[in-house]
């Protein structure tokens, strides 16, 4: 191989890698808008995580602005946002944080809550992705803002942090409060 073409090898490898990475990032379906926004919340009839005997329904979401947080104990990003959820629950009495424990097992989910605290007013237990399909969940964590009338107002994909809470979620919650 000539010296000139040999000198091009590193650049070619880099361009190939960069193209692959760029293509990969394009594929990421993270910006799919949810068709559920501004629609009434879909059915949500599931047992409670803490009390297997008790059945919960979407009625539980009415009367108060709800944050419906899809989470699981196996999901690292859920742990990452956990402290922020704790804070939101503590500091916003007129907002209820509702958990949708997704594709998880009961003991592991309860253990995580015991370890890191429990921000949820109520937790729907969905090990088989039954409600998840209706709600269009494709990964944890996801968080829906549901107003007091039970209408989905926003869907957040990915973990919540202070910045997301303040810039993205709080304005929508203010609107819900104003209704």
């Amino acid at each position, binding site marked *: 191989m*000539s*010296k*000139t073409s*040999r*000198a*091009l090898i*590193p*650049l070619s490898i*880099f*361009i190939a890698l*960069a193209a*692959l*990475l*760029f*293509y*990969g*990032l394009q*594929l*990421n*379906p*993270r*910006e799919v808008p949810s068709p559920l926004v501004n629609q009434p919340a879909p059915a949500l009839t599931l047992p409670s995580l803490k009390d297997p005997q008790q059945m919960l329904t979407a009625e539980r979401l009415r009367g108060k602005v709800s944050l419906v947080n899809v989470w699981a104990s196996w999901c*690292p*990003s859920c742990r*990452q946002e956990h*402290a922020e959820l*704790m*804070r939101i629950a503590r500091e916003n009495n007129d907002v209820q944080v509702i958990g949708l424990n997704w594709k998880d097992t009961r003991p592991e989910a309860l253990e995580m809550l015991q*370890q*890191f605290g429990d921000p949820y007013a109520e937790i729907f237990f969905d090990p088989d992705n039954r409600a998840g399909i209706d709600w269009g969940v494709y990964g944890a964590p996801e968080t829906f803002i549901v107003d007091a009338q039970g209408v989905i107002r926003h869907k957040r*994909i*990915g*973990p919540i*942090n*202070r*910045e*997301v809470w303040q810039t993205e979620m709080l304005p929508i919650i203010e609107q819900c409060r104003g209704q």
Partner: protein
Amino acid sequence: MVPELGHFALILALVFAVLQATMPLIGSLRHSQTLIALARPLAWGQFTFISISFLALLFAFLADDFSVVYVAANSNTLMPTLYKISAVWGAHEGSLLLWVLMLAGWGAAIALFSRNLPLPMVARVISVQGMVAIGFLLFMLLTSNPFDRIFPMPIEGRDLNPLLQDPGLAIHPPMLYMGYVGFSVAFAFAIAALIGGKLDSAWARWSRSWTTVAWVFLTLGIALGSWWSYYELGWGGWWFWDPVENASFMPWLAGTALIHSLAVTEKRAAFKTWTVLLAISAFSLSLLGTFLVRSGVLTSVHAFATDPTRGAFILIFLCIVIGGSLALYAWRAPSISDGGRFDLFSRESFLLINNLLLVTLTVLVLFGTLAPLIYDAAGWGKISVGFPWFNTMFIYLSPLLIAAMGIGPLLHWKRDQFRRLAPQLGLAIALTVLVVVLAMTLLQPAIGFGLGLAAWLLTTHVINLFDRSKRREPITIGAGKRNYSRSYYGMWIAHLGMVVFIIGVTLVSHRGSETDVRLSPNGVYENSGYRFQFNGVEVVKGPNYDAFRGEFVVFQDEQEITRLYPEKRKYFSGGMPMTEAGIDAGFLRDIYISLGEPIGITGDWGLRVYYKPFVRWIWLGCILMALGGLFAASDRRYRPQRVASI
């Protein structure tokens, strides 16, 4: 007012960076002495303004100015002063400011200590540094300004992430960044040499000491991070193959390859293009490391989506830096001569083997770190590349690396006879086999492997030392005898550090014990010849946290040897509880206790008790490596007076 001053200084620094990136370079190409002479003052100017900016942010932290978003998010009035200072670089925006401060600092240092370099070279090096600074300053000013204000002003700040409130972590990022940013010097020298088309051994000599110093900082930074995670995370581990750790380890591996390759380029004028590529790689990996850690993309691909401008900027910047330098390489490299020829059995060959292995390891770590990201991004599902994978890779490749490391220094440059070395290698092999057999029979087979590697490295190096002292003048450090230089001692000490490191890793992995126990107050537990008496847990108050603190009395042979006080802290600002392990550190072993969870209501606690033989040797080895680097970098041939007389 002060934050605005800081912001303004940052903008001025950008103006200086733009001038610095263009004027001296144009001057060096057009042979304009006036423009070339601007290089040094511009580098100093940029450094001055970034320092002002940094001091402004520091002042905002010390004055509890919560009208600055970044301060409000990372500090609070209760925090001890030390952590108010370290909080400056505790999160994204401030750590970038620290980065550019260091970059400008290295730039100013080049301006100051380059009296012996040809001026056009200095001008180009400083220009390249200016280009890198432009990227970072733009990134800060456009997407991550640390001086943004918030209104209304919060009464109290949110507190620094409790994990970071620790003296070890207060100095860990600056060390690491000194290393990362230090590689920008090697990078700038390489790019400047490519622009000038002159890659000679003088170029290698100049960049060699700078690169070694950067490598020393990086080594210490990584060791500090490892030590910190050992005592702060409460798992008793010293390395987790965590992506954040890997991000610092990749530039280290590439940098290690680079300092060895530079040795060949300096002494034998060979490996020139290879050295340039390594310099580009080491700095690119440093950039990648900085961004991977700071963009949050590692914890979740979603993090990129939280702030697409940052993500896009980072990608474009990385592409320009890496793509641009590789394009320059592709253009210039064909005209670079290959340099000195060498035989298969020569020091060059063994350094080449060492280089190839280090590069292979770098690629493996890069793959292991990025694979989960790529899989996730491409929607192929989740994979996890963890501990076992990395460990297996290193266990397969390290014997080759160590074997080459033992032989390389014994060999002559260019050509050597196997016959000359046969007795020495025979002796080293015999001693190694002896150690392996002893370790396998007296201890356990797996230890034989690790101690064998250490024994091989130690015996070859001791033989090398004797060999040299027989053939040359008596051993007097720094006395300036022919070839008997600090550079040689530096190599020797750094390699000895590797021996110590391997012994530490081997023994702590195979002889350590970790047990989970449940103890009632006044309960007793025995392990590895120690008896632990648990005196219960009490609640204590810290400046910005409450803590449970356990008391343990440790006995050995019925003698009390120490009392340990592990804590579990709950910071007022919320978040998960933090463990502070109780550690009795020793040269030959650590005893390590961390509090788990309370069990029941009788005062019982779940506890983790660790016995860690030789764990200190891991960091001692790193310190020796760094010390070796310092010795090598201070060799008299790198000092101005000597070079100036040539």
